[in-house]
């Protein structure tokens, strides 16, 4: 079967199967009718169906469309990485940056007071034109990157994480995407696991990453409203963020400095520039980021370029995996009160999904409890089976979507991620809530 035919067939299977389940949910009359559960179930499936529909039929990679604005001169890109105690992987990361096909680029690495031999590793690259800033004191990722940006000359900032590796054409694709439209304020790249082959856990995470990007970000990208330009490969237009760096690096939540959610929050400034930009500029009027340059406030579009690829190291132990999830949940919680304030100004569909998502994150554990514990305890063992079947079904659909993109067999691990998510991860939201003030930045 030709690849494109196989692609179409898989897409039809996904859409039809999901539609069937949706129709089923609509006509289904449970023995104990409950309007909330009824609406909830329909909403969940409708969202998944629309996600797939937009990702497969409406999304086009902005990096591959071709620029409407041919430029004589390629824009200068500042590629920045903050690193702390990553002596083993930072070299791979920098090597992949040095190997970029894109020509006009400066590379700035900020060493956030590493206590291992990172500093020595970095020194080797200074000869190859890599600018290294060694901080005396541990400031955290945001402040470290702010330091880099203060000296950056690029029109476009590309960030990557110290434990990530870029594809050789990654920066080029990001720039291509920016070139599509001057109103594109940020570009998210496509990210997979670097250490996918290590064990089952990393394989599961890898299969999950695929869908998080090629389906969820693709959906948001259709509306130019990607909510999180993820750390491993994040491109920002200088104009879109430069004035807000002081607000970003000084982010506080519940009266304490909030050190997580670097990427999510930074994306938030791009998305919310019009609604809060003026206020923030006034607030940090004395910051060099504001005094040096003054950029207009625009309705930036935030898009996702599937062809701009990066790989990041994912946790290899379950404990580390959980810690990462808790960190993400905290970021989510923080951004609920940040992005949530203005995201409703974005197109209706992604906005609706965004707020429903917030609802699902909180009601998910309660519903899982109902079906997996409460009803079986009351004697209805079938409910747990049916609930798990529903969860697995969604996992399988994402698995098939993985298969659409990749030829390898890792799609089979995707349902396990759904299961893990339902059985373990959804519950972490409460833990994250209660520990959100304990928020020192720590990686790995």
């Amino acid at each position, binding site marked *: 079967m030709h690849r494109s035919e196989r692609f179409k067939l898989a897409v039809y299977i996904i859409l039809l199967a999901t539609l069937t389940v949706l129709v089923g949910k609509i006509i*289904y009359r449970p023995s104990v009718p409950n309007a909330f559960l009824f609406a909830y179930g329909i909403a969940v499936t409708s969202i998944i169906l629309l996600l797939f529909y937009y990702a497969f039929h409406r999304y086009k990679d902005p990096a591959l469309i071709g620029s409407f604005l041919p430029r004589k001169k390629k824009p200068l890109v500042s590629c920045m990485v903050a690193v702390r105690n990553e002596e083993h992987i930072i070299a791979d990361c920098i090597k992949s940056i040095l190997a970029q096909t894109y020509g006009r680029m400066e590379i700035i690495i900020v060493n956030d007071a590493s206590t291992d031999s990172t500093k020595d590793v970095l020194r080797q690259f200074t000869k190859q034109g890599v600018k290294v800033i060694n901080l005396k004191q541990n400031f955290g990722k945001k402040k470290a990157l702010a330091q880099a940006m203060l000296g950056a000359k690029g029109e476009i900032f590309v960030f990557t994480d110290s434990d990530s590796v870029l594809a050789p054409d990654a920066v080029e694709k990001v720039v291509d995407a920016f070139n599509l439209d001057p109103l594109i304020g940020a570009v998210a790249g496509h990210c997979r696991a670097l250490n996918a082959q290590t064990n089952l856990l990393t394989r599961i995470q890898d299969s999950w990453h695929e869908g998080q990007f090629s389906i969820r970000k693709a959906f948001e990208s259709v509306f130019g409203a990607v909510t999180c330009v993820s750390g491993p490969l994040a491109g920002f237009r200088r104009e879109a963020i430069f004035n807000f760096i002081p607000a970003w690096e000084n982010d506080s939540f519940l009266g304490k400095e909030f050190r997580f959610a670097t990427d999510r929050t930074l994306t938030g400034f791009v998305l919310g520039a019009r609604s809060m930009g003026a206020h923030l500029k006034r607030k940090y009027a004395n910051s060099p980021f504001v005094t040096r340059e003054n950029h207009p406030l625009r309705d930036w579009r935030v898009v996702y370029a599937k062809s701009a690829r990066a790989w990041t190291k994912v946790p290899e132990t379950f404990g580390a995996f959980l810690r990462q999830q808790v960190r993400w949940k905290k970021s989510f919680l923080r951004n609920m009160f940040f992005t949530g304030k203005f995201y409703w100004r974005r197109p209706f569909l992604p906005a609706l999904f965004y707020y429903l998502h917030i609802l699902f994150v909180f009601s998910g554990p309660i519903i899982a409890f109902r079906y997996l514990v409460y009803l079986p305890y009351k004697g209805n063992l*079938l409910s747990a089976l049916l609930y798990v*079947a*529903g969860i*697995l079904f969604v996992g399988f659909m994402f698995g098939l979507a993985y298969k659409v993109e990749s030829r390898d*067999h890792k799609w089979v691990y995707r*349902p396990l991620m759904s299961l893990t998510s339902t059985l373990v991860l959804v519950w972490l939201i409460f833990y994250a809530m209660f520990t959100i003030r304990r928020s020192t930045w720590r990686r790995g």
Partner: protein
Amino acid sequence: MAPRIITALFEIFIVVVLLGVFSILIGKYFFTEELRAAPEQARSAITMELAYRQAKSDYEYFPTPKTFKAEGNANSIPILVYHGLAETEYKSDVLAEEFKEHMFALKKAGYETITMDEFEQFMRGEEQLPAKSFLLTFDDGIKTSYYHADPVLRVTNYTAVMFTISQQALKDKSRYYLTRDEVKEMQASGRWEIEAHAKDAHNLIQIGPDGEMGHFLSNRKWFPAEERYETVGEFRERISTEFRDAKTELDEGFGVNTENFAFPFGDYGQNTHNFANAQHVVWEEVHKVFPRAYYQSWPSRGFTFNYAAPTEYKIKRITVYRETSGTKLLNALARGTDKSLPHHDNLTHNRGWVPVWGTSRIHDEKLELRPDGGVSGALAFLDGTALWREYDFQAHVKSFDSQSLSLLGMFNDNENYLSCDFYDCSVSVRQVTHNDTITLATTPASQSVTVPRGDAVLGIRISENKIACSVGGETVITAEQPENSRKTGGIGFKVTDPAGRYGGATIHSVTVDSASFVEGFDEPRVVEGTGNPGLSTDFDWWVNSGGAMIQQNGVGSTLRGPANQDTEWQLAYADHEDTESGAYPQNIFRLITRSTWKDATQQVRFRILDYRASDSPHRNESNGVLLFSRYADGDNLYYAGVRVDGAAVIKKKSYGEYHELAYKQVFPGAYDLAQNPNLLPLNTWMGLKTETFNKDGSVHIRLYLDRHDNGNWELITEGVDSPDQHGPEILHAAHAGIRTDFMDVEFDDYRVNTS
């Protein structure tokens, strides 16, 4: 290579899981009901299948009980009622194991269940059911009834009726009662029918100011807020709504048309605490919704089985209690089964004596009746005698020391019977009805009658219009039967004694003979033909075919000559191929007695007035003047008589097939269908007589002829129906009667005597 294959297999496995998950979801959403019920159904299906297999093997080893032989058709139908079936001794219901034993015993004894529809047909007189038919019912719709009974029903091929409480049966979940799904499953099995038991009426209501609780249907409700009882109108409205709802909810819930209602607790108002007239209102209201309503009647005040009666809406059921063995149940059913005449009871065991009040027991080969605490008498009747018509009931009384001893006849229930009341020096004939007791006759003071207190033979003789009491075989008084007395009924005993004395009676043996049936055809009248015997307007006769039997000028006869055009008979028989377009309905004439006899002598005088050479294909040498005996139905009977070809024959008809038992040429001549079609003398009175009796398991029939009508009976021939030939012998009591073909015939002096 290998890892790739493993990977491929793994992917295939995952695809299979995916399809599985998808089918589960499809099942959840599109086959919700099926899936919801699936686990429970699977569990119960497995349990039931195992129970079925167990029951099946139990059945094979179950011994065949000793029982009476099933003969002919059932005259009455017993209905058994169970509730739940208990698994352990700690519940009061019949044990599941006991139930199994009951059904196996019944099945091995030749009993078969009937459906509600068959019962209805039987009650309407539209269908004959074989002897040993019974209706199996359960009340309440309890889970255990279904789960324990169904495997047994499957093994025995029985069906049952479940009287369900709609309020419970329509629920989706219940620990005790059957749920909607289970009831539907029962219906689908084809072994269960659903009828109504109640909606709310199985719950108790407050029936008095002090919080007394009582049965819903038989008491007036107490309204605590208003401090009053409901009015009769409110009572009527409440129970009427209940009946209607009980029906509608089941009908709509299960797609049935319920026409039968079983009273919760068997209480149709008789157990009322605060409303004396409850019974009357309850029956009236239930009958508006349900053509038939069921109550428990054991111990009873009347016969325990149900007799065909199209308009009877009170249906009796026999409660089967805990600790009833299979044998005990069979005996109970045997006692209620219709008895034929003559009946002799040496009282070695209970053949159906049912106490109504006082104490009566079979003990030491005697029947003892004795009043007990507070009751000034005792009454017992013999079950299975409801259809007895004319008989001579004699009792050998060992002793009696009560004030009086009564022999009861035409007993229908404790409020409907005739009696001969024997006192020391007088005998009275009385009629007891619902309203009062009427003395029909008493021996005058002038006539000295001595009723021995010991070793006496007392009797009551019931004939069509007379009641006669006898002492030592001598009739001491007679009375005319009142107009309103029942035409059928059984026998019983009653003792009365002033309270406190407890005088009773001891009976040695009982003998009941059919009174001989003598028909002189003296009363001018016409007995019209009817479709079934129950519809006949005549007390003695049923004209099964031939239009009518005419009684005039002191003789009976077939219709004579051609029926006038457009008369009722002509029109009724216009399409009948044997009647020349209705002109001669009498061509095929069948006159059947309504009474039955077993061993009996039957005789008649007859005169052939005319023979008709009809072109009917049924006119042949077998036509003649013949007497039926043991006429069970139109296809199972014996007949004996003389034929147009001059022969005397004795034949048997078994399941519609004729078998010749005897043949002898009597009248000379050469028979020829066209030229010489009748060798029997015309316009000559002759006598025909048969003797029918059982001997060593065979049926013997002797045919006599009185050629010159001068009392000179000549034995013509004898036929024997032995076992294992021509189908089953008809050994039981059945009807008698006269058959003629293609003739106008007059009859006189018909009589049947028990031999």
